[in-house]
């Protein structure tokens, strides 16, 4: 019901205002058998229009929905997958590794001194400053004794479920290019995103929902927006579908207020099907045409299933608190995380959540040039509780083992000061962490140098991360190819090595 708030407020809710209740049996008789009628029955039940709402429980928003021809039908993995779904947590703007998970006591000792003997320091803005210690205290957590800064007390509580990688390294000091790199493997615009590759390779377990869902920060999009989840040269259908956190999750999910009632939609759909059938009969043997017929039925299942999938109001208060929904600061990302759990629970293959929007870049993203404490303090509060809640919730529902959760940013930040309080971009070292998918938690992989300036041991590039990610969901990154421009293109180009501690 929540998704129709706007309509109800106008007193013109499609169907609602007319109080025309239809019996489910009538309806099925009227609309003929098959998916269409069931889908509508489901929709009506969601809107309280069905006289027998109890029966609606039989109508499911999961599974293949009888679809025979769709780019999203499940496809066999290359080998037995460790996880079925992926959740990407992208912290837009560049999280400082040395103020969060990559503890560097040496920074205390060398605070205020220039970084010397390490080669040329390239910063994004102006001149490099001297080394700067973290303004945060670090504390050991869990059985693993992992050091985590006081920015993330809640994530500190789940470190034993997380594998930390301190040696991630990118190739660009620019937000956009490095975001492209971690999302597509290439720093050049126009390549397919991880989620597009994953859904191209595996399809989806649920035909009633988009296979690859992106939920951006309610404040706005990240650098370059939708091109971060574009299908690149893969067929366009594999692009991420953006879900909005409030209102109708998908653009044009419902007709505008006052235009069409559900009953009208159904009647039109039936007429559409009759006309399309006439056309198919005169043009036999063309699967595209029949696929187009079922795409309309699917769309109308989605109309009910998508709002249901993200209807977090139906969650218990305890769950809401777990995700930090009781706190204004953490509520928005908490909603995103809770939606992500509901989506993977329903078989959505990949969900990408963004924290950070380029509306006011220095404030709304993690881009802490001006002041680490002000910027990271705010963003950490936004995400700490929700992320810890997500991991806890997935785990207690038995979903963590079949879900890969990975967290990162487009780059790390300099161990140097920017004007005494901020930090500049640093693609040389970034912390990435992964949880779920049966990954051994509490471990630390790779290392940056003593100041956290550059990755030093077991350097992990985007291709390595992507190869590992694909492996966990049962895909060999060398075999997941798409023929384009004369080549079998890969997410990992001609590189990519599995991270043994993750896949082992």
């Amino acid at each position, binding site marked *: 019901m929540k998704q129709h708030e706007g309509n109800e407020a106008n007193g*013109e809710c499609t169907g609602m205002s007319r109080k025309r209740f239809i019996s489910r049996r009538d309806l099925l008789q009227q609309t003929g058998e098959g998916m269409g009628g069931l889908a509508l029955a489901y929709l009506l039940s969601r809107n309280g229009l069905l006289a027998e709402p109890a029966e609606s429980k039989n109508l499911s928003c999961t599974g293949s929905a009888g679809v025979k021809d*769709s*780019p*999203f039908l499940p496809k066999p993995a290359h080998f037995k997958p460790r996880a079925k779904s992926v959740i990407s947590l992208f912290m837009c703007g560049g999280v400082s590794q040395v103020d969060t998970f990559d503890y560097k006591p040496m920074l205390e000792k060398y605070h*205020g001194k*220039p970084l010397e003997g390490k080669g040329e*320091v390239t910063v994004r803005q*102006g*001149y490099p*400053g001297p*080394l700067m210690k973290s303004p945060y205290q670090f504390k050991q957590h869990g059985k693993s004794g992992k050091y985590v800064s006081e920015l993330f007390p809640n994530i500190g509580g789940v470190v034993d479920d997380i594998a930390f990688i301190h040696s991630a390294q990118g190739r660009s000091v*620019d937000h956009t290019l490095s975001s492209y790199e971690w999302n597509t493997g290439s720093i050049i*615009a126009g390549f397919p995103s991880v989620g597009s590759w994953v859904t191209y390779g595996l399809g989806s377990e649920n035909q009633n929902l988009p296979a690859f869902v992106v939920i951006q920060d309610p404040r*706005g*999009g990240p650098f370059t*927006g939708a091109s971060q989840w574009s*299908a*690149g*040269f893969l*067929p*366009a*259908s594999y692009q991420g*579908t953006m879900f909005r956190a409030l209102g109708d999750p998908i*653009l*044009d999910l419902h*007709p505008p*207020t*006052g*235009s069409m009632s559900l009953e009208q*939609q159904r*009647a*039109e759909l039936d*007429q*559409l099907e009759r*006309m*399309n059938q006439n*056309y198919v009969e005169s*043009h036999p*043997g063309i699967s*595209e*045409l029949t696929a*187009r017929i079922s*795409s309309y039925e*699917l*769309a*109308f299942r*989605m109309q009910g299933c998508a709002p249901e999938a993200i209807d977090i109001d139906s969650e218990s208060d305890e769950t809401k608190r777990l995700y930090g929904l009781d706190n204004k600061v953490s509520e928005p990302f908490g909603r995103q995380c809770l939606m992500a759990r509901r989506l993977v629970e329903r078989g959505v293959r990949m969900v990408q959540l963004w924290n950070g929007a380029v*509306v006011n870049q220095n404030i709304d993203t993690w881009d802490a040039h*001006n002041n680490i404490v002000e910027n990271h303090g705010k963003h950490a509060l936004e995400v700490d509780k929700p992320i810890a809640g997500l991991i806890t919730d997935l785990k207690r529902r038995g979903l963590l083992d079949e879900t890969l959760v990975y967290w990162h940013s487009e780059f790390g930040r300099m161990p140097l*000061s920017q004007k*005494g*309080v901020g930090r500049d971009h640093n693609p040389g070292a970034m912390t990435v962490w992964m949880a779920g998918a049966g990954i051994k938690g509490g471990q630390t992989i790779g290392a940056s140098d003593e100041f956290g300036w550059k990755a030093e041991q077991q350097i992990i590039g*985007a291709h*390595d991360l992507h190869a590992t990610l694909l492996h966990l969901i049962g895909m060999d990154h060398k*075999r997941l190819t798409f023929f384009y*421009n*004369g*080549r079998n293109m890969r997410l990992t180009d*001609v590189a990519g*090595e599995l991270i043994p501690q993750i896949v082992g």
Partner: protein
Amino acid sequence: MPSVPKTARSWFGVLSVWAIVGLLLLMPGSTILGQKGQSPQVAAVLAKCQQCHGETAQMSHFSVVSRDALLKGGDHGPAVVPGNSAESLLYKRITGQMKPAMPMAPLPPLSPEEIAAVKEWIDAGAPMADAPKPMEVTNKADDSSLLKFGSYSERPVTDTDRKYWAFQKPVRAAVPKLADDRWNHNPIDAFVKAKQEEKGLQAAPPADKRTLIRRAYLDLTGLLPPPAEVDAFVNDSSPNAYEKIVDKLLASPHYGERWARLWLDVARYADSTGYEYDYDYEDAWRYRDYVIKAFNEDKPYNRFVIEQLAGDEIDNPTFDSKTATGFVRLGPRVLDRDLENPNYRFDYMDDMARTAMQGFQALTINCARCHDHKFDPITRRDYYKTLAVFNTFVEYEHPLVSSDEWSKYEKTASDINGKIKAVTQQIAGIEAPYRKDLFQAMLAKLPADIQEAFKTPEDKRTPGQRLLVAQVSTIRATGDEDGDYRAKIKLNNQDEPKRKALEDQIAALKKEIPAKPPVAMGVRDGDFRFTPHAPFQPGTTGSVNYEEFGFKGKYMPAKGESYTPPPIYFAATGLGTFADEMKAPVVEPGFLTVLNPGPAKIASPRNSEFPTSGRRRGLAEFIASPENPLTARVMVNRIWYQHFGQGIVSTPNNFGKMGTQPSNQVLLDWLATEFVRQGWSVKQMHRLIMNSETYKMASAFYNDESLAKDSTDTFLWRFPVKRLEAEIIRDAILSASGDLNLEAGGPAFFPPVPKALVSGASIKGKFPVTKDEPSTWRRSIYATVKRNLKYPMFEVFDQSNPSLSCERRDVTTVPTQALTLFNNESFIVQSQHLAARARKEAGADPAAGIKQIYRIAYSREASAKELQQAVDFVKERSEAASKAGGNSSVLSLSPLAEFAHVVLNSNEFVYIN
């Protein structure tokens, strides 16, 4: 770092096939060698298989890279039983005896000759070298024409390479004579039918006239034929009735509006830069209009090529030809601190080279950026030879007025700007003391260690303190470094009026600046190394001071000044230091060795507007020459693709070995020679194709046998139905409702999108939120193409990605398309208008309205069954509506509008039959 590309191990598999060819040819005892020289054909077949069963991909766990692998087979067992083709899975699959037949779509089935060659080879024991090795590159030490540098050793381009079909000039074959005279009137038909007979396919009968006129209209103009036109055509019994329609449509200005889109896809056209800021390309639309005009004027294609690459370098450049150079510049650009990131320019040039070479030559030269091309005879040096052509470019706004008028404008503007600058300095003088105070105030807010550093006398500062001081440099009126740079410093009562007076002077001066004459976004030659540096942040690392290396030059030399093009160094990427990169040999401009082994013919044009190298002109003329084996073939294939929804070569941007081979090479070659013979006239190609029986065939035709033999309709036994492209679906809807605003050309319009979409997007350019009204009902080609914010309806309907050259649109079918077309407000409004139009034209009777909608949308009469279904539907809807009581919303749909809404969503509407 593990991410660095390692050995090209994964490519060896494919190379090995060619190695096998070589080895087989060398094996004197080989059974293969003796048999009519068929073995290269087997190798070529296996090369096709490798796309899915090679080193990079092993579908069904099967690979064909070695004899062992073939004998071992994959999930379905051994592929080859030596000596017994009948028992060999490979043979069963390629002959289709076992399903699925191989190769799978999109590759065409093998030819009977290829199948015969494989059979012979298997029956001869399937000999293959056991341990295939990568092809030996026999780089002769004395071959000084090959480049050796560091670990790079350029592969030689051999006569064998040149024998590849696409590098051989097309040969005009004799037109076959068919028994059935239906196919003897147009050479296209003869070639197509001959192939069908070879494949045993039965062709469809001709389409009916109504289908044909709708097809022709949508194909050539992207608009629906008005019902009166349809009637007139149906009633015109003259023998050339159809020809007249084709000619009329080709003469229509809407022809260019439809066909330009094809080229804009190839040219990765957009109205904005993409990347983080997505700035507007304010004048990109002039290039778009140029392309539309070029199609409408039937500009000879060879001239079209030359203008886009070198419209500034040709003799007597025109406004149009200079506008055409926008082609070079339109790609995605960062345009932020480009000087500090020299690698950006290399990426831009990569974009130029790849777009030009894929677009005009269908060769993936970009694959040779880091190494010799793995499949085609394109060397890494070839790549740098091409970069040398583009390395002369500087961005330039070509004035579209006489040079007198332009200099007059420039002089006036620069005089006034000089005065403004002087006044601005006076203001700065007044503000200086305040700025000093602000700086102190800001300092006081900074951490203690910075204040301490500032207090410490310069010579006493520690190295760390020196770094801190250097970081704090600028101060803005807001009292910090990052505040609004436009904000004004607050002054006291004495100074404020003084500043105000000066500001008024500036405002008055600004009014005197004359309006800027129109300019086109393009390129000219110059020396990027001397780009005036607007010091955004002095000292930012990365930028190169070329003067320090002893270079002299000028960013844009004026007429009469000397000009030496900047050199390009082999393997330079801008990622290393310049001092290192310049140690590599300088690469001279040139063309692909395989097409042109000698030194490139490049001469500095004499009478161009500015000093210029002639390099782009040299490349353009090389491409546009009738001697070039690719240019004409590539363009006729694109035209063919657009008409039939598939190409003779199904990879229009790649005619290389990894592209698909032509399904009918004689036809392709005949068309290519005809194209040149007809003066590179695109319109003549349309006439030829559209007047063929092949084009005029029915799509509503079914034949079990043909479908089984050629399920993808590669050999065109029936006319393939084609879904309209995103833009044309929208245009057709507007043309059905009668709302289409035919205003042509000019700056882009912005289709209505939700406000939230715009406010959340990463764009610095403009994107006003508009609503449904005539100004947003223009043809889709005039809709803005924003790299970071696509119009959602276009996006879901497979619009091309404007960051890369697009050879063909995908056709995907997904539920979000249905949601958009069915629920989006714009299309609901259009349904109302279509119903209103039908009522106006046919009267209030619902049945008459329905019939009229059929005529408008489908260009045909409704059948009795269809009419009955529709009348029942409208009746049922009327009853339902009256039961429900009135719906007063402006968006509510009348029963007939509901029917119209269904029609606009129907398959028949969004497909060309």
